[in-house]
């Protein structure tokens, strides 16, 4: 059974801090790992990672995958209150279209 574990489950920081969110996984026939951001509504897509060691970056957010150690990290630098959200990690196998999601990390950024 595929499994995704995120840590920490919740995190409270001050504006300007840098945070690192972790996602480890066990999946049969891994194809990709995805990060989503969920505010008080629909999860929105952030990144998809398929290759080890290649950083994906979007503004203050970046992510990298380690397929040997089976984990990914999501970094957010110079956090802002608008970064407050649940960050979801999901993995996709090579066959089929299903994703397996982790529990999510609730990030709260205080002014």
């Amino acid at each position: 059974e595929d499994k995704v574990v995120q840590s920490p489950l919740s995190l409270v920081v001050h504006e300007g801090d840098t945070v690192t969110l972790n996602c480890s996984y066990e999946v049969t026939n891994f194809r990709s790992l995805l990060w989503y951001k969920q505010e008080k509504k629909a999860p929105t897509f952030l990144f998809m990672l398929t290759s080890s060691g290649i950083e994906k970056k979007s503004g203050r957010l970046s992510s990298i995958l380690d397929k040997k150690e089976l984990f990914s990290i999501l970094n957010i630098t110079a956090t802002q209150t608008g970064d407050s959200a649940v960050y979801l990690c999901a993995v996709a196998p090579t066959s089929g279209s299903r994703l397996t999601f982790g529990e999510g990390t609730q990030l709260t950024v205080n002014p």
Partner: protein
Amino acid sequence: DVKVTQSSRYLVKRTGEKVFLECVQDMDHENMFWYRQDPGLGLRLIYFSYDVKMKEKGDIPEGYSVSREKKERFSLILESASTNQTSMYLCASSLLFGRETQYFGPGTRLLVL
């Protein structure tokens, strides 16, 4: 932009009622999914569909059924709602092969009394 809409943002129903949740996507996606999201449990897949009239059980299908009569529309049905089905329900869609990015609707928060 992909748009996924859900028929209701909030619903309150009574135990034993039949409940319909509808989801519509406008990007001609083959795959559609229904999840429920609960604190401490993350997103759990209820059912998904990869084509009209096709459906497959997810991880927690008990107590639910689905219908996909048109490509753009995927309905989740609670035949007889129970209090343990109080949850946030999220619909998503994606392309069929090799395109695992899923696009989500805004969610329906269902309260069963």
